[in-house]
């Protein structure tokens, strides 16, 4: 996605102002003119200046550079599906891995991504299962990372 500089400028301007406003509430250190607000406050100030410059340059480049311009992949549903699968698989992992368990969420997410990336169904199934087991073994057994069992807690070993 190509985005016009001015759009970035507006977002960064809002961020800079929000930070500047937020740091006003930070504690002051009695007897000193420097406190926890000074450093983030100065950065926010710099960000605001940069944001304004971006807005100016974005507006100057305007007819040539539209506000938003979709890259070729937006029109190809296969690429959109691959991007969506990547996002959704990761979000699903964040939301469900603890409650449902690594050994269920990981192969499902992996299989979905493999299919969306264009692998055949058979390959996707095989790679998802073998890949999950290899990564699980390496991290859970060898490196002792407590990957969650979730609903499979009873079978934990």
């Amino acid at each position, binding site marked *: 996605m*190509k985005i016009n500089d001015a759009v970035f400028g507006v977002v960064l301007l809002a961020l800079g102002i929000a*930070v500047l406003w937020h740091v006003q509430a930070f*504690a002051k250190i009695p007897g000193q003119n*420097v406190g926890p607000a000074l450093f983030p406050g100065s950065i926010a100030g710099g*960000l605001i200046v*940069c944001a304004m410059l971006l807005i100016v340059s974005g507006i100057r480049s305007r007819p040539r550079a539209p506000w938003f311009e979709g890259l070729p992949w937006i029109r190809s549903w296969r690429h959109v599906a691959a991007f969506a699968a*990547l996002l959704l698989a990761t979000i699903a992992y964040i939301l469900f891995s603890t409650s449902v368990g690594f050994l269920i969420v990981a192969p499902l997410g992996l299989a979905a991504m*493999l299919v969306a990336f264009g692998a055949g169904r058979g390959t996707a199934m095989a*790679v998802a299962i073998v890949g999950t087991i290899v990564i699980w073994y390496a991290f859970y057994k060898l*490196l002792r990372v407590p990957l969650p069992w979730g609903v499979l807690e009873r079978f934990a070993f």
Partner: protein
Amino acid sequence: MHDIGLALQMVFDPYNLWVMFAASLFGLFVGAVPGLTATMATALLVPVTFFMAPIPAIAAIVSATAMAIFAGDVPGCLLRMPGTPASAAYTDEAYAMTRKGQTELALGAGLVFSAIGGLFGTGVLIVSAPALADFALRFSSFEYFWLVLLGLSCAIVITSERPLKGMVSLMLGLLVACVGLGNPAGFPRFTFGSTELMGGIGLIPMMIGMFAVSEIIRFAVDTSPQMLIVDQPIGNVFNGMWTLTKRYPMQILRGNVVGTLVGALPGAGADIAAWMSYAISKKFSKEPEKFGTGHVEGIVESGSANNSALAGAWIPALVFGIPGDSITAIVIGVLYMKNMNPGPTLFTQNPQNIYAVYLLFIVANILMIPLGWLCIKAAKQILRVPRNVLMPLILLFCIVGTFAINNTVFDVGVMLIAGVVAYVLEENGFPSAPAILGVVLGGMLEENFISSMIKSDGNLLGFFSRPIAASLGALTLSAWFLPPVIRRLRRLAGA
């Protein structure tokens, strides 16, 4: 002497050698597969090195990155697609050589002069780092403040065509570094009541997001057509290397020097070193018209530059804690995790560790010759690995690796957001190197700024009160103001 003995013991420990061997194979594979970069190799290694002793952890990173930078040349030769950004400068040249039937010469030059470049950079590291550290022992907060600011300024000036966008990246990185309790006053900033944010935004999850997940996203939405492998038998790649060394001694030396210097400059790494060296090589060549038609001269020079940059980047990283490129930005995170905090005291308190780091570089660059040869032999098989199967597996590895650092899925969220943000920003011309430098150096910049402010009682002139601080300050200010002034003058002269 005793320290060197200890270092030898640590490096030639069987476990350490095994780690180096495994990491080398990993690095060669990651480097040879287009779309996987040396920085990504480092980011993926961090969760594994988390469970190792300091020296094997550093050994893994040193070997993997050195191999990856070389291996990036292989698909450049055979597919016209750089394996890592550091090979992009001469990919067209290497591919043109392949079309002329000189695959062996191109790959051999890449391999041999990569190893020489790596060894040269290591030599400079060995000579200059202790001297700089000795000098840096006298630094106070004023000098460190300017040094960090100078490093950050270099990163903006060098890495981006438009300094404004580099500046924005840097500011965002610095803001991220502000989150949490880790500030001189110990005040919880931008935590919004979340306990997870108290400790700040994790460096490792962010880096895995920025350097690995963003590449997977780039692959997912890549619409360029599949490249075809050139099917040519590859003979002895070492043929003719001695002739090349005799014909291009000046080019080799220049590539090494430029590479090491660019590497040592904060923010600019192997990729920029290669581009600069290739351009310099063409400019000073006796036969510039041959460049681009399959001429080995540029490959000799820039192929050694990118590997020497790798070692050069460690100089400021070890001495000052200021990373020379994005790889050493991750390394600094690892050093802190391993209680080997970078800085001049690293050289005085535990010198055996520093000697071990030097040795690791030497061993890795020598190991590159036989293993690189194997990689070239296996190149066609490596390049046939289906990337659409590989990428989802790497994503799962990233997720589990991120989780492994603190055992929390919160970090996986940080990784995903960092990946998406880095992808969107890079697509729109905002470079990622200044952002990562901002995150790594934000704490150090603020700490030295605040203590200098307190010492000088808020008087900014105090920042120039010591001679070294004043020179560093002048240097920093000129890095800001000279480029625009020169540009203006040039425009006036042209008009």
